[in-house]
């Protein structure tokens, strides 16, 4: 074969491979976006995941009962409408509506919002319209309910309110907690370890063994760490499925990566910095804290940012240590400390509820986070390098 032909074939494979990669990336992103976009609503972004039921006391307005044509209920100072599954839903609330001063069982203000559903007034349950739709129109149904309210005009009533969920707020918060906690544990440990390995450890067999161990730790699939975490943190240390069990497990996963990246960065710092500093009579510790670490900041920051990506994307290890409950963890460990991150929730939505739209909507959020991380790590590197070379 002559050289031109060989070049041609090689070029073809190079371009074809690059093309396939780009195509796959675009295809996957488009798939996620098209499937998930309908799921991204204000409610999705701002609401709790589970419906929340609360009993509240409301001081109803005095005066006229009845209901307006448009569904306006004067004693509530709000518009109501039929809710599909149960009761009535608030659609528009007056500025001075008494529902804004609703008080829950603990005496805290629990201001009602649009879409909150009222299902019980004192002891009278509000049947769903579905149940009675054969015997009356929606207008009649709403009128009946308005009459119940009228009886209590001017009085304080106890109302059962269901606030619909369907949002990702708990998962966002859990993910955020997980990031902060994992980094708080992993970053200092790994940075100190990297400093030890690069600045203090004597080159030789022991150091080689440590490096070998770190390389291999980085290659272990995260499910193995998950199994270890679920046995050690969850069971033996009795932390249960919890934020802390998850964060500890993830920290172990992050150690090798942050150590390696930090070490690489420390290696790129010219030895003359160390020599000059020591030559001026600085101690080793002074040299490290005043010259070496400041110069290593860009590299360390990038390592930390990439770790954020890793935490956000982790599934197997967290499934086994932090659980799948869609709630904001209320403690670090123990039985109310469990919480699902966005990724875990996307997984359980597909696996257990077959809800592709919501899973993909979460996928979009994850994509945005990851792209954001990559862009900021680029910017940080660029900015700090510029500053250094200025």
């Amino acid at each position, binding site marked *: 074969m002559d050289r031109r032909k060989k070049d041609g074939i090689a070029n073809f494979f190079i371009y074809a491979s690059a093309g396939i990669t780009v195509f796959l990336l675009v295809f996957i992103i488009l798939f996620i976006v098209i499937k998930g976009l309908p799921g991204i609503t204000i409610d999705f972004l701002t609401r709790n995941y589970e419906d929340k039921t609360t009993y509240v006391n409301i001081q109803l307005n005095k005066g006229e009962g009845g209901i307006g044509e448009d569904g306006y209920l004067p004693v509530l100072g709000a518009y109501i409408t039929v809710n599909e599954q149960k009761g009535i839903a608030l659609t528009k609330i007056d500025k001075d509506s008494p529902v804004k001063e609703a008080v829950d069982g603990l005496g805290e203000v629990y201001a009602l919002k649009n879409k909150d559903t009222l299902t019980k007034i004192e002891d009278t349950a509000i049947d769903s319209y579905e149940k009675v739709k054969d015997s009356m129109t929606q207008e009649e149904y709403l009128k009946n309910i308005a009459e119940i309210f009228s009886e209590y005009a001017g009085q304080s009533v106890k109302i059962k309110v269901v606030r619909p969920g369907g949002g990702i707020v708990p998962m966002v918060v859990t993910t955020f907690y997980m990031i902060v906690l994992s980094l708080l544990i992993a970053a200092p440990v790994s940075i100190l370890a990297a400093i030890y390995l690069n600045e203090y450890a004597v080159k030789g067999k022991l150091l080689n063994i440590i490096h070998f161990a770190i390389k291999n730790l980085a290659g272990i699939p995260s499910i193995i760490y998950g199994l270890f975490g679920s046995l050690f943190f969850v069971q033996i240390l009795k932390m249960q499925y919890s934020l802390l069990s998850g964060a500890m497990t993830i920290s172990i996963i992050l150690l090798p990566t942050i150590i390696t990246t930090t070490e690489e960065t420390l290696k790129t710092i010219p030895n003359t910095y160390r020599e*000059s500093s*020591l030559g001026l*009579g600085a101690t080793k510790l002074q040299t490290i804290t005043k010259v070496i670490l400041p110069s290593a900041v860009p590299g360390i920051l990038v390592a930390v940012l990439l770790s954020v990506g890793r935490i956000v994307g982790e599934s197997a290890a967290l499934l086994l240590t932090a659980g799948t409950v869609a709630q904001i963890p209320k403690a670090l460990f123990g039985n109310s400390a469990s919480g699902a991150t966005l990724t875990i929730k996307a997984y359980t939505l597909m696996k257990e509820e077959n809800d592709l739209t919501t899973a993909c909507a979460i996928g979009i959020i994850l994509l945005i986070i990851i792209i954001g991380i990559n862009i900021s790590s680029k910017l940080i590197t660029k900015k700090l390098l510029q500053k250094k070379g200025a």
Partner: protein
Amino acid sequence: MSLQKKCKFQVNDLNLFYGNFQALKNINMDIHENEITAFIGPSGCGKSTFLKTINRMNDLIDGVIIEGTIKMDGVDIYSDIDVIKLRKKVGMVFQQPNPFPMSIYDNVAYGPRVHGIKKKAQLDEIVEESLKRAAVWDEVKDRLKKNALSVSGGQQQRVCIARALAVEPDVILMDEPTSALDPISTMKIEDLALELKNKYTIIIVTHNMQQASRISDRTAFFLTGDMIEYGETEQIFNNPKEKKTEDYITGRFG
């Protein structure tokens, strides 16, 4: 021509090994106070290695073995003085200008700060005084807060000299301090060295024989770890005793 000056360093039977490799062989010499002593010799002959034994920079390298003694003002620097104290007294300037990636001010203030000086006024004074002594004050006085890497190479090197002067050393070691600089910057550094020797003892490694003959009082010629000849610069360059020295300075090798 020279009045016999006080002896600053006495080097006795110095041998240095990097593992199995002997980089310095049985060096004996006296280095005099308030003089410029030049080390010359071809690449790899051990000039830098020897220079670094004087402020114990070789301590940082794994596997270095040092035999013999070096005394500074009669005190053995390897056994009778704390290494931090030694390095405070013996400053060093490197081949490549290597300011820290921080402002000019912070570079010069670095040494005093690590030795515990915190007062702003005192630091200001030290920084100004050091930069003036390093003959670079006028060029950088409006840019003290700028990154030291933003000034020219020659200025960076003088900032590095100022940084070394700021801890008030007695001795300044210079390892080919002008080899990365243009001729004008080189001249400025040479003038500076001549100025500084009134107050400090200067030991300079140089590749450039004209430089050695221009500025130094004494010259030592090294070859593969041996000190071949050591004497007054005039004598070494005009009337070398050793054949090897003559070959080297007349450019027959190296």
